[in-house]
């Protein structure tokens, strides 16, 4: 009872059309890492937003260090030592790293001007344990999502809070960075900070958490010490049934080469990238964050202008100058940053999903509303997107369901080549399986699929071929059978960079 720093009692919350939380109890001990898991839309983020004062609970009490909270609000909660890293990054993209971390409490000089020197030094000190190369003066929008995440975490830590909520902090991170984050979390725990940790990467939970709470459909299913549960049991409680296969790989006969990229170069981003994708094939692209995977894809897609190199579709060279050209030529790209590149938050589920097919499903510019409506509704059902209706604004969906909308948007449009950039980020175990199935369906129907992912298990288990990217180039190609996580990591870390530089074509020659 005494070591309970936080106790949330009987929390209820409903939104129009959804009961997000149905009388949930939750508690947090001093110096523990408490994992909170559940399917997309289970209510995890809502519970945390109530804790942070962003939402007001319809019912329920919150006790902090043995005292019941009366007045609340975001400021009050921060002052009370509660800091939340939200699922969606909430940085000001046009401001620098330092300004973001110190917003509202900038160090001042006596003259009343901001003491930039001190600010930059402080930021360097705060970022030190992360061991990352981030310049405090860099503008946020120039950083990769992983680095943005590091900034978010650094900001929360710099507030000296003793209760820290992390809502899917590892979603944009890769192996090494996750390790670093865990180290930071362990250090914090040892110094008495209590942490609530939300993640859909269930393999992380046993590594880092002391206790776990499972939510399902707004209800608390259980809270247990981690030693008493296996991952399989956690999954069963989350989805309410036993999940037979996490990576349902089917073998699809490969057809003709559908996409071929030759010596693609974009100065500062990628160099001499050559690879091909065949019909029915899933090609996995992996590498560390910042290795240039996203940039390669965006160059192919025409979002960034290439310096040289050629792209062939169905054996024909194509000129792609804009994303519009790419889509016309049959390439679809599902971007990694959902809020900024994938969704229009202020529009409905329908408008977001139908966006890619309006040109096909219209006559003289007029939409075939009925037909669109039917296809959208069918897919919402198939993908189990949790929304009260297709008219709901996307802003109000849970993070994972937003991700599903982005995927759905492209499933509606029939492309020859699909490029998925981190397709399962933030998606729960059950829905992941559905997405893998849908991806394989695309392949089975003759599309070529490129899957960029930082999650090694999914790369290893779902790809037919794996391309490892290091500092803007493909350093190694593995056939499905040859790859294992250690070998792939070695190349991703650049340990073999030297060899591959001596024989630059080695990667391609092996096929």
């Amino acid at each position, binding site marked *: 009872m005494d070591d309970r720093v936080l106790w949330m009692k009987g929390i209820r919350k409903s939104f129009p059309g959804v009961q997000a939380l149905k009388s949930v109890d939750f508690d947090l001990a001093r110096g523990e890492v408490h994992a909170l898991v559940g399917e997309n839309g289970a209510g995890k983020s809502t519970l945390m937003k109530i804790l942070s004062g962003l939402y007001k609970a319809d019912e329920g009490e919150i006790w902090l260090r043995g005292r019941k909270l009366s007045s609340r609000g975001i400021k009050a909660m921060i002052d009370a030592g509660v800091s939340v890293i939200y699922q969606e990054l909430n940085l000001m993209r046009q401001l620098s790293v330092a300004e973001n971390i110190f917003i509202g409490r900038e160090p001042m000089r006596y003259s009343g001007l901001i003491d930039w020197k001190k600010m930059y030094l402080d930021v360097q000190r705060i970022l030190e344990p992360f061991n990352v190369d981030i310049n405090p003066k860099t503008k946020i929008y120039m950083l990769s999502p992983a680095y943005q995440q590091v900034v978010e975490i650094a900001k929360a830590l710099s507030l000296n809070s003793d209760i820290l909520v992390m809502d899917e902090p590892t979603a944009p991170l890769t192996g090494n960075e996750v390790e670093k984050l865990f180290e930071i979390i362990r250090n914090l725990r040892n110094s008495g900070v209590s942490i609530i940790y939300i993640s859909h990467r269930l393999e992380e939970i046993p590594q880092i958490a002391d206790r776990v709470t499972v939510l399902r459909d707004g209800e608390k299913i259980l809270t247990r010490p981690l030693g008493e549960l296996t991952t399989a049991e956690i999954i069963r409680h989350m989805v309410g049934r036993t999940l037979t296969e996490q990576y349902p790989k089917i073998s699809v006969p490969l057809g003709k080469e559908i996409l071929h990229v030759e010596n693609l170069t974009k100065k500062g981003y990628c160099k001499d990238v050559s690879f091909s994708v065949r019909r029915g094939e899933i090609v996995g692209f992996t590498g560390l964050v910042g290795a240039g995977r996203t940039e390669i894809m965006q160059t192919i897609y025409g979002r960034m202008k290439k310096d040289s190199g050629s792209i062939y579709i169905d054996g024909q060279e194509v000129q792609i100058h804009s994303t*519009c050209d790419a889509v016309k030529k049959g390439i679809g790209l599902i971007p990694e940053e959902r809020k900024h590149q994938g969704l229009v938050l202020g529009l409905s589920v329908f408008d977001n999903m139908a966006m890619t097919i309006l040109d096909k499903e219209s006559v003289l510019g007029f939409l075939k509303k009925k037909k669109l409506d039917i296809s959208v509704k069918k897919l919402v059902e198939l993908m189990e997107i949790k929304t009260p209706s297709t008219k709901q604004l996307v802003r109000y969906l849970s993070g994972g369901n937003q991700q599903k909308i982005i995927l759905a948007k492209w499933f509606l449009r029939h492309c020859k080549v699909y490029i998925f950039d981190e397709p399962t980020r933030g998606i729960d175990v059950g829905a992941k399986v559905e997405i893998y199935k849908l991806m394989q369906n695309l392949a089975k129907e003759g599309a070529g699929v490129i899957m960029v992912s930082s999650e090694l298990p999914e790369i290893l288990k779902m790809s037919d071929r794996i391309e490892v990217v290091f500092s803007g180039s493909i350093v190694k190609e593995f056939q499905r059978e040859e790859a294992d996580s250690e070998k792939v990591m070695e190349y991703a870390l650049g340990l073999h960079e030297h060899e591959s530089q001596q024989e630059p074509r080695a990667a391609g020659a092996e096929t």
Partner: protein
Amino acid sequence: MKVKFVETLKSYGIILAFLLICVGLSILSPVFFTLNNIINVIRQTSIYGIMAVGMTFVILTGGIDLSVGSVLAVSGAICAGMLKAGNPIILVLLATLGVGVGCGLVTGLFVTKARITPFVVTLGMMSIARGLALIYTRGYPISGFSPTFRLIGGGYILGIPIPIIIFLVVVIIAYIVLMQTKLGRYTYAIGGNEETVRLSGINSDFFKTLVYVISGSTAALSALILTSRLNSAEPVAGTGYELDVIAAVVIGGASLSGGRGSVWGTFIGALLIGVINNGMNLLGISPYFQQVVKGLIIIGAVWLDQLRAKEE
């Protein structure tokens, strides 16, 4: 209870304000609530109401068009000049609309291709179009047209003034375009998040340009009505109209950062401004004072919008 009240106020706020002002004016002025005056108000409203519909498209994409008043002047001048030169009316109508389309196209291309912010481009266009109107007319009004042409602004169909009919038709077309067509949906989407639209493989520049073309052509359409109605085109016509036009859109609930707004809102917003203008005239309030009131209304409307945005 309190939440509900605020919600209602936000959704129906303008309609409520509109009704209140109408009731107030009916009490204060015996003339206000007469059929004659009401028709008069709507007819006056239709001139900038039509432009406000075009402006709605622009503002929905997150842009702004300050040049509408000047585009009206230059289109009106060219219309008048061509009529005087004895061109057939049909040709004149098309040419006038063409001027509006042309101005909008230039603006749109500078916004999308040269990537200059709409505020600056249209500020420039405001000056350019005004200048062209003055050059073309040498600074003098051009007046005196055929009775046929004067029907556009002065005629009636089934007892309803033609400008009102044109206004309503424009509103209905715009509503259908915004709700039922690609262009409409993309207009909202671009205002919501242009990057997403572009990454969805949509030629967002094309649609963004189109939006300025729409705004330009509604300005030209208003020019036809105004020129016909006054039986004269003045190079200084439409000065300061952008204020009323933008005010109508904003009062109608559109967000200046784009992505939110509606034609019906704009319609009511335009009527509201029309009623306020008319009411102040009826009550004998000085035009100088009217300016102050209008300014306050615009700030008030944007403030309301801020409150709305804060919720999200």
